[in-house]
C-alpha cells in the first residue's frame, strides 16, 4: 500500500498575524512556519498504516525551498520519500491551483491513498481535499478520524455534528484527516540523521505539464482583494455585585438599552 501525504507549510498557530504592505497578504516577517497540524494527523495515520501493512509513505508539498524543512520533518518521522513542487516564481496560488499541481504530481506516482489534513490552518478554505478527488477522478472522504482496511477498500469514520458517520470507499482514495486519537509522533534523533541524507525531489510546475501562469496571480479563480484584522475587542463592562438584586437589575437594563439583545 503506497501512501502520499500532502503537507502544507503554514504560519505557526501562535503567530500574531499582521497584514502586509500590499493589504492582500500577511506580513511574513518573523513568522515561524510549521506543518499544518491536521496534516500531521494525516502523516501519522499513513505511517501507522505503513507500519501495520507495509508499503511506502511519500510526503509532498507545494511551496518555497523553506518548506523543505516540513518535508525533512516528515522524513524524520518515518516517511520514505519527499517531493516539493516549487512555488518560486509563481504568483499567488489559490486552492484550485494548488490542487491542480498536487494532482499532476500524484498522477506520476502509484498512490493507493492520498492523505491531506482536512484543512490547512493557513487559509482554512477546506477546498483542496474535494478538489484533489475531482481532479484525480477518485472518491474522497473528509473529516476522517479513523480508517479500517478491507481488501480493495477502506471504511472511514467521519466526524459529523454530534455523531460518527461510517462510509466505505474503494481504493485508491483521497482522505481528509481530522484530529484523532492517533497523536502525531515526534521525530526520532535517528530519523533526523537519516532524513538529512535523503534527497528531496524538486519539480517545477512546467515539469508537471501545468501552465501555472494561467491560473495563478491575477488569473487565479479566487483573488484576495483585501485582508483585515478583526476589530479590537472593546473593554469589558463590569457590573459590581455588592447587592446582587440591584446588580441583576442593572445587567438587565444594560442588555436591553445598551447591547439591545433583549
Amino acid at each position, binding site marked *: 500500500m503506497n501512501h502520499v501525504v500532502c503537507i502544507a507549510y503554514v504560519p505557526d498557530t501562535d503567530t500574531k498575524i499582521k497584514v502586509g504592505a500590499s493589504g492582500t497578504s500577511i506580513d511574513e516577517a518573523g513568522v515561524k512556519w510549521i506543518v499544518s497540524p491536521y496534516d500531521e494527523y494525516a502523516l501519522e495515520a499513513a505511517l501507522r498504516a505503513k507500519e501495520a501493512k507495509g508499503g511506502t509513505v511519500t510526503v509532498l508539498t507545494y511551496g518555497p525551498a523553506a518548506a523543505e524543512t516540513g518535508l525533512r520533518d516528515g522524513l524524520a518521522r518515518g516517511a520514505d520519500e519527499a517531493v516539493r513542487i516549487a512555488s518560486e516564481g509563481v504568483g499567488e496560488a489559490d486552492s484550485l491551483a494548488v490542487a491542480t499541481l498536487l494532482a499532476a504530481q500524484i498522477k506520476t506516482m502509484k498512490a493507493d491513498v492520498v492523505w491531506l489534513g482536512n484543512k490547512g490552518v493557513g487559509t482554512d478554505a477546506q477546498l483542496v481535499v474535494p478538489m484533489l478527488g475531482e481532479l484525480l477522478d477518485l472518491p474522497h472522504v473528509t473529516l476522517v478520524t479513523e480508517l479500517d482496511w478491507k481488501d480493495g477498500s477502506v471504511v472511514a469514520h467521519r466526524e459529523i455534528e454530534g455523531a460518527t458517520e461510517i462510509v466505505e470507499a474503494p481504493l485508491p482514495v483521497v482522505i481528509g484527516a481530522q484530529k484523532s486519537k492517533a497523536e502525531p509522533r515526534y521525530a526520532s*534523533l535517528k530519523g533526523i540523521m537519516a532524513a538529512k541524507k535523503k534527497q528531496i525531489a524538486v519539480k517545477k510546475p512546467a515539469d508537471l505539464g501545468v501552465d501555472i501562469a494561467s491560473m495563478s496571480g491575477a488569473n487565479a479563480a479566487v483573488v484576495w482583494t483585501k485582508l483585515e484584522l478583526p476589530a479590537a475587542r472593546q473593554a469589558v463592562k463590569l457590573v459590581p455585585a455588592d447587592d446582587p438584586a440591584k446588580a441583576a437589575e442593572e445587567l438587565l437594563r444594560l442588555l436591553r438599552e445598551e447591547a439591545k439583545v433583549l
Partner: protein
Amino acid sequence: MGFPGVDFYGIDEMLSEDERAVRDLVREFVDEEVLPIIEECAYEGRFPKELVPKMAAMNLYGPTIPEYGLPGLNNVAYGLITQELERGDSGLRSFVSVQSSLVMFPIYKYGSQEQKDRWIPALAKGEAIGCFGLTEPDFGSNPNGMRTVAKKDGDDWILNGAKAWITNGSIADVAVVWAKVGGSDGPIRGFLVEKGMKGFTAPEHRMKMSLRASVTSQLAFEDVRLPGANMLPGVEGIKGPLSCLTQARYGISWGGIGSAMATYQCALDYAKSRKQFKDRPIASHQMVQAKLAFMITEITKGQLLALRLGRMKDAGTMTPNHVSMAKRNNVWVARECAKLAREILGANGIVGEYPVFRHLANIESVFTYEGTHDIHTLILGQAVTGIPSYNPPME
C-alpha cells in the same frame, strides 16, 4: 508559545544544522510534553514515568552510541539534549543522564558482549531503567573509601554494603554498582545488580525538597549473590566510575545552562509585564535591569564554555579538568539565575504557577551532586598549581 531560545551572541551560528535540529526536537518535546505536567509532578513528588517511552522513541537514551539502532550523535548534540531537558526540569534531566551516561555508557564501554546485547537495547527502548551506585552514606566526595564489598564464592560474587543518593534507585531494573573486590583494600570493580535479586532492596529517600520529580533511593545489599558474568570485565579501579562521572558531568555542564535559561526567560517575561509605580513595567527599573544583565551575561559565557567543551570532547582533547570548570561554573550560573529570578518575581517567585522556585530547589542538588562545587574548585586549583590540596581520586 514555545520557548524562543536564549542566544544573545549568535551562538546558534556555531551549531551545525543537525545540532540545531536535535535541539529543536527536544525543545518542542519539553514545551509540549514536560512543562504542562512538571510543576504538579514536582509538587506531588511524582516521577513522570509516562514520559519514559516517549523519550525512548525519540532516541534520548544513549544517543551518542553508534550501534544497536542508536543515532551515534556527537557530543555537542548530546549536550543540547541535556540543556533542553534541564530547561524543563533538573530531575527529568537527571533521569536521562543516569540512563545514558551512568548506565548505558559503562555497559557499552566496559561490558561483555552478552551484557551489552542484553541491556543496551532494553535501556535504549526504555523497557529497562538503570541506576548507578557509587556514593555511600559515609562516602560522597571520597568514593575511594567505599565499604561495599564483593567476595568470590565459587563462580559467584557475594555483595554486601549500601549506596545512597541514587537517582532512579527504586525504579531501576539494573544497577551498575561499584564495589571493592575481596576486602577493603581490594580494587574497585563494577557489577550489574538486577531488580528482584535476593538481598537487594532500594528504599527511597524521604522528605526530599529538591528534584522532586525524580526518584532518589538508597541501595542495600545483604549477601546478594551475583553470577560471575555480572561483573563488568572491561575496567578495574576508581577510573571506572570516575570515567562515567566525567560523561554525566559533561551533560550537566549543558544542563545548568538549560535551567538558567528557564529562570532567566521567566524573569524577563515577568519583568516586562509586571507593572508597579506609575504603571511602568518593573523591567524599566535599574535594579531589575542589572539582574537581567548579569543573568544574560553569565548564561552567554556558560553557553560558550559548554560549546567549547563539547567541541573538545568530540575532538578527543577534553580532560576531566575541563569538565570540572564547566560543571562548576554553569551550575553556579543556574543557581545564581534562579535566585535572581526569584527576587524579580517577588511573591510570585515562590508559587508553582512559575517554574522558578522548582528550579531554585532543584539546582541545590545539582550544585552538590556529580562532584560538589567545592571539590571542582579544588580540582581546578590542583590543575593550575600542580599541587593537590587534598587527596583526590584520579581518573
